[in-house]
């Protein structure tokens, strides 16, 4: 490698921070939208989902990066999905064994990580083109960005819909829970309003 030490670490830190905000999968790229809408009725399942995605993302990025020279163009997608499916199976069995309650709440959404666009997108855009270290850092950055987005959304919905946060009561007793936020409509509208807020803030910053 001809790159000097300084630019290598620059490359690493860039791989790490891209996913946190500039290319945040949920808030900026709007990909992999199924878990942010489906599992964010409370913070706990959202966090579990986020950690599962981080695990799968890091492992699949690493494996895809290691086999990047063996990939055939027309078999690429199937190779990615089989790799991802392997790690999702590991993750699913782990949750079933050690977090049975969470596994029940998340249900089919854990195996559905296999077809989460974020993971395939990162395998295609980053891991199949770069070395293992960059791929792992990219996986961590994207995964954490995704988890934070999930927790913000889940936090808003949990506090307003039940008055609890992480199962601890935070709202005064007089607070009337907004039950609508627990329903599917709450997921769409809350995410829409958060995106609107981000829109306004970025525009104000630009001007």
């Amino acid at each position, binding site marked *: 490698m001809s790159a000097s030490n300084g630019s290598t670490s620059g490359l690493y830190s860039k791989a790490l921070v891209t996913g946190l905000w500039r290319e945040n999968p949920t808030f900026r790229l709007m990909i992999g939208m199924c878990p942010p809408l489906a599992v964010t009725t409370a913070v706990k399942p959202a966090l579990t989902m986020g950690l599962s995605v981080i695990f799968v993302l890091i492992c699949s990025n690493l494996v895809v990066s290691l086999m990047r020279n063996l990939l055939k163009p027309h078999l690429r997608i199937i190779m990615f999905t089989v790799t991802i499916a392997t790690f*999702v199976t590991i993750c699913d069995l782990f949750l079933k064994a050690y977090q049975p309650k969470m596994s029940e709440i998340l249900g089919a959404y854990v195996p559905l990580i296999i077809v989460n666009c974020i993971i395939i997108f990162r395998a295609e855009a980053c891991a199949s083109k770069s070395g293992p270290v960059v791929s792992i850092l990219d996986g961590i950055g994207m995964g954490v960005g995704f988890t934070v987005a999930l927790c913000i959304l889940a936090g808003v919905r949990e506090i307003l819909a039940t008055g609890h946060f992480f199962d601890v009561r935070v709202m005064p007793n007089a607070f009337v829970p907004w039950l609508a936020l627990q329903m599917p409509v709450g997921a*769409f509208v809350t995410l829409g309003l958060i995106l609107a807020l981000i829109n306004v803030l970025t525009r104000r910053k630009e001007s």
Partner: protein
Amino acid sequence: MDRFTALLMGFLSVVLVNNFVFTKFLGTCPYLGVSGRIDRAFGMGLAVTFVTALSGTLTWMVDAWVLTPLHLEIARYICYIVIIAGAVQLVEMYVRKFFPSLYDAFGIFLPLISTNCVILGICLFLDVWGTNNLLEAVVISTGTGIGFTVAICIMAAIREELALSDVPEALQGAPITLITAGLLTLAFMGFAGMIK
């Protein structure tokens, strides 16, 4: 007759009441990203319906007749993915051979159908719902695909209108789409009482 009623109810349930897009958030990527053109949305919906019906049925058969008797449930997800990829490949080859113009119109969307969550979703939910005969599996997986088609066609029609309307500055782009989707969900909740 009773069996027929049960099948019809199951079908209506996945098209309207338990619509995958509105209640399970599956397939939201194409749903939110669909362009404001109904003909494209309809074509996409048809392709997804076909693949859903095919792979839902195939995975049910593999699951019930191969994986469960052999106690290979651990390999379930990998099998599902391979079957879906195979079904998509089949559809792609068929469309390319017999409908070349449609093939060009779909472009990259066709291979990407294999990563559409609706399809893996139906394979998984057939198991969750405890579907126990082949006919039921066929009807429910076809219904799911039709439900998806209904959802994206409605969305495409609304986006067509939305392009001409005066949206508040803050809501432009993704936010208004999500809020529209939320209101549609609310409308579809009206079907909830239809089936016990």
